[in-house]
Structures are given as structure tokens and as C-alpha cells.
């Protein structure tokens, strides 16, 4: 969803820039701006979704805008000279060469930020939703979504953005056509518009699915994966229809324009009547903008030579690698130092130190996720091999249902259950339920039942399965293991929700 939202914001910014350059002949959309908008939309959506909180200091947001200013200035000045120095902000504020890219960057950043905040809100709603009767879950979801006064639920937000921007750009396309401006790269415009529609649809649909999955999870049902498959299939059909529509709508970026249609019908009619009038030719100069040729000629292009595309790309890479990388490294280092030495005082941090800590924790989590992603594949292969070897050894003479202790250690199903138990203990520790070394799994299970009474039967089932896996000599069957793991999964998700709720409470306190 975050990716779709980022791409949507990028498409909006880029398309808007294209139309500005079409309507306002004095300014041309520079190539490096694509990259910059792309970078900013990604940064904004991810930051708003995963890091930003109501208590994030305003200085941090101002710093982001400052960085944006800095990036636009650097990119703009690469290979070009200006009549005023880079620090002359008051001069830049009235210079359209600076104002348009900066305005677009700010707009893209804001749109992406809005999406990110909605994603974060959806997560918070899912966290806050709990201990509700199954019949009221859906109603509760909507009421929680509407909690901040005068705001719409995320689903409507996504839909409104999607429809709003689609209509805006369709209107702009028609306006371009009507005003007779010729587009230099219609395929790029069509591509951007398609991307806008597609990603908007993906974001809206995913938000809907996320809401469904949350509600299903709350009422204790397993979310059917077939729903996602059905939705993807429907999305593909709708996208195809949209693609066809985009290419059929007689607007200027479509290969089938109004002129083409008229020409086609006119020639069709002409076949049947020999003396029908000839197809009227549209004079070239009528379609051209005043004072220009077929393609818009921007005034500054006549005087100055436009910097080559590679220069813009290199500049962008330079900024990303050196400025961004250096900033990131400094933030991570500062965050690491604070986390290492401040320990429990972290919650008292405010402003930039807090931002550095958040950044460090985000980077650490990202590395941990990447690590577990790489090694989960390795473990899956290993587990598959172990399962094969184990089932082979069983089929080669070991008695059915009973096996000796050493092969119990190799039993992958037992290992799965024991792994789930370890996870439960670990997760329970994070909510303050620490298992003492002298406590038996049964005692731990009873304590857990008191902590999450809504999962009492699941915990009992899982502990029984764990006893079987850890202390018995019986072979575990797939169904029992699956049931135990599913029970553990639901308990784990409840515990995780409790942890998150605790964190939210701590943040809001």
C-alpha cells in the first residue's frame, strides 16, 4: 500500500508539472524533477506511515522542507548560472524557475504525507479495536475511523483522492486539447495517467482489504486468502478496462483522438457517397501555440543551452549518496549512541534526538527484517529437507506413531511447535509476563490465560500440543500441528496488539 501511495503521489506531481509546462510556456519540466519527486514521495509516505506521530516535533517537518529546498536548489543550479546566489531565498521565492519545481516538490510531499498519515491511522484503528462483540466490530471500526472530528474514514480518503485527481487530469487533458496546445510526449502523459489510476485503485482496494482483514481478525475468524486473490483478479479486469478507456477517450494523449474519430467516420461515409465533400484538413498553425512551432518552444531554451540529462541524473545520485547517505549515517550513529547510553530515558527525549532515535530504530528494524527475510528462505529449505529425511526414516522401519528420543529432536513439526512456544514466551515477556525458570509450561499457560482470557481455549490447546511435542514420544500429525500453530498465532497477534497499545499509551501519555 505504501508503495502504491508513493507512486500515486509521484504520478500526480509529475503530471501536474507536465501540464504547468504546457500551459505556462516560460517553464519546462526538467528531467531531474522526476527523480526528485520520486524520492520525496517515497520519503514522505514512508515517514508519515511508520515514523510520524502526533508528538513529532514541528522542527523535524521544517527540516524536511529545508532539505527539499536545498535539493531543488542544487539540482537547479547544476550546470546553470543564476543572477542571484543560492542563499538569496527572497529572490528564489519570486523566480518561477525555482518556484515551480519547489512548489511541485512540496505538493507531492504533502500528498504522499497525507496518504502516509491515513495508513498510520488505519494501523492505529486496528490496534484500538479489541474486546468488542463480533456483531459490533464493523460499526466500531467505522466509529474509530471517524474519531477525529470532521474527518473521513481512510477508505473514503483514498477514494476521494483517486477520483479527484483522475477527474482533474482528465479535465486538464481536455483543456489542453481545446486550447490547441500540442503535447511533445503524449505516451509519457498517458503512462503517467495510467500509473495514477492504477496505483490509486491499488491503494483504495488494499485499504478496503486491510479493513476487512482487521475486522475478520477481531472477530476471531481466519481471513480467507481467496478474498485477496479475487480482489487482484478484479483489479486486473478493472485496470484493463481503464487502459482501454484511456486509449479510447478522445483526449489529446490518446492514440484515438477526436480528430481520428471524425476522420474515420468521415472516410467511412465517403465510401458510400462518391460526391461527398473531402475530409477537411486541420491547419497546422491552428494547433500550434501562439508564437511557437509544432512543439512548445520555451523562451529560455532559445538563450541558454539546457543541461544534458546525464548531468541531472548524476547530480541526483550525488545528492542521494553523499548528502542523504551522510545525513543518514550521522542520524543512525547519534541514535545508536542515545539508545545505548540513555536506555530507559528514551521516552523523555524530544526534538532532534528523538528523531535520531526513531531513525536508528527504523534502520535497525529494517536490517532485522532483511536478515530474517534472507534466512527464512534458508530455513524453509532446511526444514523441507529435514521433513523429507524424517518421513523417509519413518517409512524405513520405525514403528508407526512411536519413535525414539533422538529422532524427536529432528521432528520438524515438533520443532515448529516449540518455536511457537518460544515466541509466545518472548512476546509475553514484552508485556511484563515473564516466565520463571521454575515455571512449567502448564503454569505459564495458565498465567497467559489470565492475561488474555479471550484466548483461553486456544492457549489450552496449544499447551497440550506443546506437551506432546516436548515431552511425549508420539508422532505429531500435520492437522494437530496446524491447529496448534494457528492457536499460537492468534494468541501472538493479541499479545502484539497489547504491546502496540502499550507503546501508543506511552506515547500519548
Amino acid at each position, binding site marked *: 500500500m505504501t508503495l502504491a501511495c508513493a507512486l500515486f503521489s509521484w504520478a500526480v506531481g509529475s503530471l501536474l508539472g507536465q501540464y504547468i509546462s504546457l500551459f505556462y510556456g516560460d517553464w519546462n519540466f526538467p528531467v531531474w524533477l522526476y527523480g526528485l519527486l520520486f524520492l520525496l514521495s517515497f520519503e514522505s509516505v514512508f515517514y508519515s506511515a511508520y515514523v510520524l506521530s502526533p508528538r513529532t516535533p514541528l522542527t523535524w517537518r521544517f527540516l524536511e522542507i529545508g532539505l527539499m529546498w536545498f535539493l531543488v536548489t542544487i539540482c537547479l543550479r547544476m550546470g546553470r548560472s543564476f543572477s542571484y546566489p543560492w542563499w538569496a531565498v527572497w529572490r528564489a521565492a519570486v523566480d518561477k524557475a525555482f518556484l515551480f519545481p519547489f512548489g511541485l516538490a512540496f505538493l507531492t510531499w504533502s500528498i504522499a504525507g497525507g496518504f502516509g498519515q491515513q495508513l498510520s491511522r488505519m494501523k492505529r484503528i486496528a490496534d484500538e479495536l479489541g474486546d468488542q462483540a463480533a456483531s459490533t466490530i464493523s460499526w466500531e471500526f467505522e466509529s474509530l475511523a471517524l474519531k477525529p472530528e470532521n474527518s473521513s474514514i481512510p477508505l473514503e480518503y483514498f477514494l476521494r483522492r483517486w477520483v479527484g485527481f483522475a477527474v482533474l487530469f482528465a479535465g486538464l487533458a481536455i483543456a489542453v486539447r481545446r486550447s490547441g496546445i500540442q503535447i511533445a510526449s503524449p505516451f509519457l502523459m498517458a503512462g503517467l495517467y495510467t500509473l495514477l489510476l492504477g496505483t490509486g485503485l491499488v491503494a483504495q482496494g488494499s485499504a478496503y482489504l486491510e479493513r476487512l482483514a482487521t475486522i475478520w481478525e477481531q472477530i476471531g475468524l481466519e481471513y480467507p486468502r481467496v478474498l485477496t486473490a479475487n480482489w487482484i483478479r478484479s483489479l486486473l479486469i478493472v485496470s484493463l478496462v481503464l487502459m482501454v478507456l484511456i486509449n479510447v477517450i478522445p483526449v489529446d494523449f490518446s492514440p484515438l483522438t477526436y480528430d481520428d474519430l471524425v476522420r474515420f467516420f468521415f472516410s467511412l461515409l465517403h465510401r458510400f457517397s462518391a460526391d461527398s465533400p473531402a475530409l477537411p484538413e486541420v491547419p497546422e498553425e491552428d494547433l500550434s501555440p501562439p508564437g511557437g512551432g509544432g512543439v512548445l518552444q520555451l523562451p529560455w531554451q532559445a538563450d541558454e543551452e539546457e543541461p544534458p540529462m546525464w548531468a541531472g541524473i548524476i547530480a541526483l545520485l550525488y545528492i542521494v549518496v553523499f548528502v542523504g547517505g551522510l545525513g543518514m549515517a550521522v542520524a543512525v550513529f547519534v541514535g545508536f549512541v542515545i539508545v545505548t547510553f540513555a536506555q530507559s530515558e528514551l521516552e523523555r527525549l524530544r526534538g532532534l534526538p528523538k528523531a535520531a532515535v526513531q531513525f536508528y530504530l527504523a534502520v535497525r528494524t529494517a536490517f532485522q527484517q532483511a536478515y530474517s527475510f534472507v534466512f527464512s528462505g534458508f530455513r524453509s529449505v532446511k526444514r523441507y529437507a529435514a521433513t523429507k529425511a524424517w518421513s523417509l526414516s519413518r517409512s524405513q522401519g520405525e514403528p508407526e506413531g512411536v519413535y525414539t528420543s533422538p529422532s524427536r529432536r529432528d521432528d520438524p513439526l515438533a520443532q515448529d511447535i516449540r518455536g511457537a512456544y518460544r515466541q509466545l514466551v518472548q512476546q509475553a515477556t514484552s508485556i511484563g509476563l515473564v516466565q520463571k525458570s521454575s515455571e512449567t509450561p502448564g503454569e505459564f499457560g495458565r498465567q497467559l490465560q489470565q492475561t488474555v482470557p479471550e484466548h483461553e481455549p486456544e492457549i489450552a490447546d496449544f499447551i497440550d500440543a506443546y506437551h506432546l511435542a516436548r*515431552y511425549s514420544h508420539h508422532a505429531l500429525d500435520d492437522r494437530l500441528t496446524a491447529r496448534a500453530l494457528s492457536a499460537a498465532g492468534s494468541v501472538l497477534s493479541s499479545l502484539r496488539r497489547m504491546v502496540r497499545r502499550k507503546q501508543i499509551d506511552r506515547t500519548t501519555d
Partner: protein
Amino acid sequence: MTEPRIDSIAEFGRTLTENISRVIVGKKTEIRLILTALLSEGHILLEDVPGVGKTMLARALAKSIGGTFSRIQCTPDLLPSDITGVSVFDQKAGEFAFHPGPIMAQVVLVDEINRATPRTQASLLEAMGEAQLTVDGTSYQLGPPFLVIATQNPIEFEGTFPLPEAQVDRFFMRISLGYPTLDEEKEILRRQQSEKPLIGLESCSCPQEVVLLQRLVRDVYVEESIRDYIIRLTHATRSHRSVKLGASPRGSLALLRASQAWAALEGRDYVIPDDVKHTAVSILAHRLILSPESEMRGLTGDAVIKELLNQVPVNAEP
């Protein structure tokens, strides 16, 4: 009789508990512990104040499992031969004929065992340890099953002889019944108002079944870490600061057997750490000899074992 399965032990436990509960109100855990001792081929020492139903419980158990039952009422003038039996010269046959004593039964209730002299108490040693009796050079097999249920009153000191350590160690389990709750006592009064419930009690099993189930209990699977846990527990009793003499290896073995039986009564054919914890106090507490200072402070074996159960690691998940 067909070979029973592990489920039949749980069924046996349920049936017997239900039957005994017709006489004894409440005390489900104590009844479960007594069944554990029965299935582990161990002997039971019921220790409590007078009038809480020790004798009645022992008689109810004996009646429930059927088989032969005898009762020995211990007094200071009781002689060993009064327990083991005596050879009397038969003038007609011209030879000594052995008249078996009350110990020659499958369930023997030794009431107020600490009133018998140590010499008489010692006559029970061989019977309890090896389930056989030697009189005048001839050995007699006892049981199977052979179960001694002894009762003693821990309060009285006058005219009593405390059981020697060797004798106490031979008791598989020591159980205290404790006073009944208010509701339980009311129920006792209601039931016994018109008749003695023990009179109408029928047996719901047979000694052969008990023997088969005892054999089956030995097959209950014990995982390596459970054995380690049992050993850690008994070793911890030996190094405890308040204990002069800790539990013997016989104690470890008894705890293992009791855990197996408890697991079987729960319907499992494998032992879990909870089984050990459930039986540990009854199995180990009476085997400890506390230091005089600890005894002066009022510390009991039960408290020491409970403390150790909260300290010794289970090693559920390494």
C-alpha cells in the same frame, strides 16, 4: 482379561474416585494421590489429627478395589507376631502350623502406627519393602497387589513411638487430609445422619485389574529432561540449608513412579513437569530430616519442598 490401554487408567481413576467420594466428601486431590500410590505400588502414610476420616478413606479404598482387607490396630503392647502371624504346634498332625497374621492381605490398614513399639513397627519393614514376609525361615509372598495404609496422629506424643527414618522412607507417600470445609462438613452430617455410608459401599474394581494397571503405569514415557528435573529436585533437598538429611535415591525413584502414575490418571502416556510438581510434596517432604534450628523455627518438610519447587529450573525450553 484383555490387556488394558492407558485410557483405562484414567477411567479406573474416575470410577474409583467416584466410588470413594460416596463415603469421603471432597478431598479429590488426596484421593488422586492415594490412587497414584496404589498404581505406583507404594504404601501410604496418612498423617492427620483424629476424626478427619483417615481410617474411613483407607477402608473405602480397600473396599473399592476389592481383594482381601485386614486392619491392625496398633497399641504399645502389640507384638510383631500379632502382625506377621505365628506358628502353632498342631498336636494332631504333630507339626507346626502357620497361622497367618493380618499382614497377609492385599490391603492392610495399620491404624495409629506410631502407637506400636519400634520393634513391632520394624516387623513391617520387610513386608513393605519387598512385599514378602519371612516367618520361622519360611518366606510368604504378599499380594499382589499389596498396599499398606498406615495412619498416625502427629499431635499426640504420650504413649507414641515416632517412626524410625528407615520406616518412614519405606512409605511411598505421606498425605494429610486436613479439616473439611464448612460445606463439606455439612454434607458429611447430612450423609451420616441415618446410616454409615461405608456399609453400602460396593467394590468397583478387582485386584487383578489393579495389578495390570500397575504394570501399565511403568510404561508411561518419561522424557530425559523430566528425569533431570526429578534428580535436580532431590539433589536440591540435600543441599538445602535447613535440611540435615535430604531425600534418598529411593525418593527420586518414588517421584518418578508417582509422576508416571499421575500422568496415567490424567489420561496421558507421557510425563510432563506438572505431574512432578503435583506429587513432589507428598513424595519427598516426609523423607527430609530438618535441622534442629529449622524445626524450632516451625519449618516443615512440606514448606522446604514447596520452596524448592519455586526455585529449581524446569528447563521447559532450552
